[in-house]
C-alpha cells in the first residue's frame, strides 16, 4: 500500500516535471527529473515522448545509462556555499567536506597562495553547478586529475557552462572568423573550445565523438556545423585525445559553427551530445620492478611490450600496445591506461601519451628525469590497462548565451 502510494507520488512528480520541459527553462525541469533517485522506465518513456526532441533523447539516454552503469553512475551531490570575501582555497576545502572530493586551486601567485577571494552564496545546488560558479568567480578552468579536480586560472573564465551529475562542460575560448573573397562569397565561422571536467571517482575511461544537434546565434537564427578550418592543426579535434581522457585531462573538443549572418555577434544556444565511455571489459598487464626492454605480456586480445626503458640519456619508458585482432580504427577508439609505481613515491603515477604512430599503436610513458639524463626514481611496477570493451553513455549538454562578461 505504501509502495503503491510512493509510486503514485513519483509518477505524478515525473509527469509534472515532464510537462515543465515545454516551459521557458527546460533545462531546470530536466535537471529536476534527473535528480530523482529512481526513474521508472515504463513511466518515463511514455511521458518523455511528449517532450521536446532534445530532452526526449536526453531522457532516453539517461535511462539507458542508469541501466548500463548502475553504481558507477555519478551521484547527484548537492552542496551549499556561503562565502563573503573568502579565499577560494578555503571555499574548496569546505566543499570537500560536503562532497568528499579533493578540490584544489592552483595559484601561481606566491603572495596569495590561497587564491583570490570570492563572494558566493549558493543554497543546496548541484556540486558541479557550484564548481562552475567558482570557475566564473575566479576566472579559472577545472582540470580533472587522478583523484582531484584542480582549478587553474586561464583567460577571462568560462563564457557559459553546463553542469550535470559529476560533469562540467565549460565553453572557454571562442573565436569569430569572417572570410571575404573579392568578387565571391563571404563566410563566417565561430570556433569554440569546450572543456570537460568530471568527478574522478567515476570510472570514466574515455570520451567519444561530440555532436552538435542544435545551435542558434543571438538573433535566434540556426547555425550549421562547419568543418574545422583547414591548416590550423591546433584547432583540429584530436581523435586520440578525445578517445582517451587519460591522455589529456584537459580534453577540449572543438566545435565549429557557421554564422548565419554578418550581423551575428554571439551564440545564444548550443545543444549537443558527448559520448562518455565506461569500462565493460579490460585487459590488464603488469610488469615488475625495472622492466627490461623486450619484456611482454599478452592475453587473447592484446599484447603489451616494453619497447624502451629510460637511461643513458633516453628519457622514456615506452610501452607498445598491440591489438592481436581487429582494425586500427577500432584500436584508435580503445582507451588505454598506464600507471607506474616508483620506489619512494606513495601513489602510482598515471600517464597517457598514447599515439597511434604510422599504423603502430605505441604508448609512451615519460619517466622522471634528472638533469644528467638519469632517472632518479626506480620503477617498482607498471600496469597497463586496455579497455577493450566500453559502455557508452551520451551526455546531453546545453549551453546558453555564450557572450562572456
Amino acid at each position, binding site marked *: 500500500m505504501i509502495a503503491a502510494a510512493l509510486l503514485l507520488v513519483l509518477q505524478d512528480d515525473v509527469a509534472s516535471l515532464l510537462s515543465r520541459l515545454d516551459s521557458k527553462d527546460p533545462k531546470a525541469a530536466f535537471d529536476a527529473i534527473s535528480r530523482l533517485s529512481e526513474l521508472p522506465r515504463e513511466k518515463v518513456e511514455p511521458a518523455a515522448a511528449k517532450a521536446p526532441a532534445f530532452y526526449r533523447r536526453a531522457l532516453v539516454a539517461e535511462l539507458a545509462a542508469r541501466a548500463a552503469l548502475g553504481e558507477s553512475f555519478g551521484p547527484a551531490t548537492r552542496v551549499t556555499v556561503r562565502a563573503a570575501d573568502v579565499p577560494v582555497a578555503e571555499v574548496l576545502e569546505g566543499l570537500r567536506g560536503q562532497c568528499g572530493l579533493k578540490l584544489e586551486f592552483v595559484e601561481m601567485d606566491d603572495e596569495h597562495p590561497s587564491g583570490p577571494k570570492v563572494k558566493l552564496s549558493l543554497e543546496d545546488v548541484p556540486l558541479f553547478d557550484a564548481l562552475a560558479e567558482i570557475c566564473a568567480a575566479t576566472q579559472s578552468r577545472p582540470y580533472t586529475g587522478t583523484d582531484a579536480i584542480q582549478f587553474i586560472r586561464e583567460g577571462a573564465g568560462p563564457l557559459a557552462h553546463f553542469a550535470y551529475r559529476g560533469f562540467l562542460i565549460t565553453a572557454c575560448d571562442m*573565436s569569430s572568423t569572417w572570410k*571575404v573573397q573579392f*568578387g*565571391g562569397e*563571404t563566410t563566417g565561422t565561430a570556433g569554440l573550445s569546450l572543456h570537460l571536467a568530471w568527478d574522478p571517482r567515476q570510472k570514466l575511461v574515455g570520451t567519444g565523438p561530440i555532436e552538435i544537434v542544435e545551435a542558434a546565434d543571438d538573433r535566434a537564427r540556426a547555425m550549421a556545423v562547419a568543418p574545422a578550418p583547414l591548416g590550423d592543426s591546433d584547432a583540429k579535434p584530436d581523435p586520440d585525445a578525445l578517445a582517451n581522457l587519460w591522455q589529456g585531462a584537459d580534453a577540449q573538443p572543438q566545435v565549429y559553427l557557421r554564422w548565419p549572418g554578418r550581423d551575428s555577434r554571439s551564440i545564444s544556444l548550443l545543444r549537443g551530445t558527448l559520448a562518455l565511455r565506461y569500462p565493460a571489459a579490460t585487459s590488464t598487464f603488469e610488469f615488475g620492478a625495472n622492466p627490461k626492454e623486450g619484456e611482454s605480456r599478452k592475453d587473447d586480445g592484446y599484447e603489451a611490450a616494453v619497447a624502451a626503458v629510460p637511461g643513458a640519456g633516453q628519457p622514456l619508458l615506452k610501452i607498445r600496445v598491440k591489438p592481436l585482432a581487429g582494425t586500427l580504427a577500432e584500436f584508435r577508439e580503445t582507451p588505454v591506461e598506464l600507471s607506474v609505481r616508483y620506489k619512494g613515491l606513495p601513489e602510482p603515477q598515471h600517464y597517457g601519451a598514447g599515439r597511434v604512430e604510422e599504423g603502430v599503436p605505441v604508448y609512451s610513458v615519460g619517466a622522471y628525469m634528472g638533469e644528467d639524463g638519469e632517472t632518479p626514481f626506480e620503477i617498482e611496477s607498471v600496469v597497463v590497462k586496455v579497455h577493450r570493451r566500453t559502455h557508452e553513455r551520451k551526455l546531453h549538454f546545453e549551453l546558453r548565451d*555564450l*557572450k562572456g562578461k
Partner: protein
Amino acid sequence: MRLSSLGPLVLILVLGPSGSSQDDDVAKRVRALIAELRSEELQAAEEALDALAKLGSPALPALRAELEKAAGDTRLKIESAIKRITRRAKLDEVMGRPVIVTMSATSVPVEGVLADLQKQSGQPLTFKDLPFKRVTVAVDKQPFWEALDAVCKAHGEIMWRVQRDGVLVEKGPYRARPMVVQGNVALYFDGHTTSKTVPGNDGTFWLEGAVAWTRASRPSAGALAVAKLEDDKATNLLTDEDPGDHWSWEAGQDPDGAVVGSAAEIYAYVLPHDEAEKLAHCSGSLRLSYVLSMKKILAVKDPANSKGTVHTGGTYTVQLQDASAVGRDATATLQVTYPGEGEERMLAGFHFALVDTAGGSHRPRVESQGTSVSHDGKSMHTTETLLLRWKLPEKCAIASLDMLAPDDVEEVTVPFNFPGLPLR
C-alpha cells in the same frame, strides 16, 4: 579561329630601321646630347644625361667612342650614362624579357585558348577538366597576367591562381580581383579574413594575395610596404608598432622554390569597425629585389673536416656546427650571425654553395632551424641556425663551402592602390 602573339616586346624593336642607319641616328643623337651635357644650365645637363641613359644598349658603342675623346666633367657624365645603361641592361636580363600577348579568339573552346596562351607565352599553365565553353576574347599587346585574366573572365566559370611551381586554372566562378600588373609582375589580392576573440575585439585582419612573375623573371626577394590601410569609418588599421612593412617572401633561401609566384600577405592588428562596409584606402608598394651580381663573403675549406670552426666575412660570422658528405648527399648545419633584426636579411639574400674541386657550384635546400636576436650592448644581432642539404649531381670531391651575398641589388617598386575593397 585566329590566335597570334606579337611575342616579346624586343621583337618590335627589331622591326625598326635597318642596322647601319639606326646606328648612325643613335650616334648623332648621342653627340647632340653630349653637347647638351656641357650646358652651364644644370637642369639642361641633367636632362641630357637622363636622355642618354634612356637610349639604352644601342647607344653604348657611340658613348664609348665619345668617352675616348672626352675629359673632365663631361667624361665623368658619359661614364655615368654608360654605367646606368649597362646596369639597366643587366636588370632587364635578370628580370626577363616582357611577356606580351596579343590574341583574338572567337567562339573557341577555352582549353584551346589556354593551350595556345601557354605555348606562345612559355608560361607553366596547368588546366584540365574545365567546364566546356566556347569563349570570345581579344587581347592587344597586354602583359601575360592580364591576358590570362581576360580568358578566365571571358569564360566566367574558371579562375586562375599562382602556385609555387606554376599557374593553375581551375573550375570556379571568375572573380574580378584587385590586381596591379607591371611588366612581368602581378600583385593581386584574393580576399581577407578577420579573426577575433569573443568577447573582446582582439584579433587580426589578414589581407591575402599573391605576387606572380613570369618564368625566368623571379625576384630574389620581395616585400610589401603598406602606406595606408583605413576603413570607411576612418579606422586606421596600421599602428606605430605595425607601420605596414609586410615581408611577403624571401626567395634567396630556396633556390628550387617558387617558380612563378608566392604569397603576399598583409596583417593588421587593429580590426575594421564593425559597421564599416569597405576599405576606403589600401595603398602602398611592392618592393622587389633583383640581384645583379653576387660576391663571395667567405669560404670554409674542406668543410667535412672543419666542424666547430668559426669564419668571418664582411659583417657575417659563420660557425660550422656539423658537415658530412655521403655519396651524392651532403649536409651542413651552421649558425650565421649578422647585424640587425632579421628583416635586413630578407632583402640581403645571402646563400651558400658547395664548390667542388672541378669548380662546380652547388646550391642546397635550406631549412631554418631557428632564429634568435641578441643585443651586445651596442647593437642588435640576428643568429640563424640553418640546415643545408645537397643532392649533388654526381659524387664529387668538395673543395669548399662558400657563402655568397649580393654585391649589386636593384630594387623595383610596384605601387598599388585599391580603394573601396569590400569588407563584407
